[in-house]
């Protein structure tokens, strides 16, 4: 039996710089307007890198809840925001012991009829579908600056990433962008 890992999937990458928290939320909002049921967004990055702020944008962009209502799910582990056109399942793997606990949580099943947005995805990578949009956040050169490394794997995630390119260009999203 051929494993999915053997399959060649299209992959595209972008490197973005967000100037501040507001720009990170705006990026998330643009992404939230584009997501569809079945999409999985895997967020990685250290404490304070801006993962929850990005999710505030994604949830509000999808109409799930106002950005100010989206808080860190570190303790509760999984929060569904179902007020919009598609349910966003906001998951936080910070307290999870490993990929099997993400499965225990039933999170992967939920992603089929909604959008899965997973913080600390690096802790549960083996349980995530290979076809996903990964976003790695890191500290930038200025105190409020963050770098975002986006990697889309699979046909749909690549299409999502390209749609995000267009949306950010139209919105004049105010950061320098470097292609890799």
């Amino acid at each position: 039996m051929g494993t999915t890992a053997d399959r060649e999937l299209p992959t595209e990458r972008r490197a973005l710089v967000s100037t501040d928290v507001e720009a990170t939320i705006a990026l998330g909002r643009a992404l939230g307007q584009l997501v569809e049921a079945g999409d999985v967004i895997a967020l990685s990055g250290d404490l304070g890198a801006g993962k929850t702020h990005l999710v505030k944008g994604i949830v509000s962009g999808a109409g799930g809840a106002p950005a100010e209502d989206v808080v860190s799910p570190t303790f509760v582990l999984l929060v569904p925001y179902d007020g919009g056109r598609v349910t966003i399942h906001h998951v936080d793997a910070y307290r999870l012991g490993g990929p099997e606990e993400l499965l225990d949580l039933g999170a992967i099943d939920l992603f089929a009829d909604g959008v899965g947005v997973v913080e600390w995805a690096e802790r549960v990578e083996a349980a995530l579908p290979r076809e996903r949009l990964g976003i790695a956040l890191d500290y930038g050169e200025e105190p409020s600056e963050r770098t975002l490394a986006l990697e889309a794997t699979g046909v749909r995630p690549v299409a999502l990433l390209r749609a995000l390119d267009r949306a950010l260009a139209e919105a004049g999203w105010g950061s320098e962008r470097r292609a890799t």
Partner: protein
Amino acid sequence: MIVLGIESSCDETAAAIVRDGVHVLSNVVRTQIAKHRPFGGVVPEIASRCHLEAIGPVVEAALADAGLASIDDVDGIAVTARPGLIGSLLVGVSFAKGLAVASGKPLIDVDHIEAHIYANLLAAPDLEAPFVSLIASGGHTAIHRWEGPGRSELIGRTRDDAAGEAFDKAAALLGLGYPGGPAIERAARDGDPGAVHFPRARVKGAPLDFSFSGIKTAVLYHLHGPNRKRSDPIRPEAGSVADVAASFQEAVCDVLADRTVKAARAAKVSAIAVGGGVACNGRLREKVNERARGLRVVFPAPALCTDNAAMIAGLGHHALRARLEAGAGPGSSLDFDARPR
């Protein structure tokens, strides 16, 4: 009236028996913290499976500790229905519904946050409404104005991390243990709270709201240098762990105490009641008491601050009494669902 309370909204499986809404006859919590420490301490009791294994024995222990022979000796059952992790909530709610059907007892669904506020009335039954409540825990940070059961108004809340979560994450950055609250407080005992000035974040246009996400970055930058990563070495000029822990604790407690006392003055109430796991912090108790001159201040004992089912049974008592006074039968009491938010 004797009420059985059941709580399973997050990590703890808990059951308790409370008489007349204030007398705690038993309060059983099955916690996983000790069990998980050998694994690095961050493994939560996520699996509803764990709640499922625990809930029967925990309820039996609550009945036995209260000197009750069986479920027949209670007048009603109260269960946490929201907010929380849906899979965990469902275990408690399903168990309680099954127990209610089998025993013929009425069932009450309870809000976890409102029950945390109510825990102050278990600690201080003479506490008079209205009062202002601060609930600060790993999962929640909120200020309410309490008028009575079913009548509390949210007037302040965190926009990002909960206060207890900030303690846990700062403890992780400092290489201290889990849970972070007690670990930071222990380390802070030998430290200077004025050694480092960490930010006291304000939320624009919402003077009673909190933001604790920025202080993580502030601690990280202080330890490793501006715009550095956690993998970078800790700077010598960062100072001692005790000083950083004490300064961090000072900043978080300052903000919690400041907003809560402001809220109480603005709401013109004469009492402040604090709950949630962070209420166990000694520095927070000092800070609130310092600032709340002229106001009564209630901090329940730790067993009533952290997640427990006595607060569920206590609050449930009032809804049950109201329902019985309205002449409603138990028939409609199963008509509710567990809700994550």
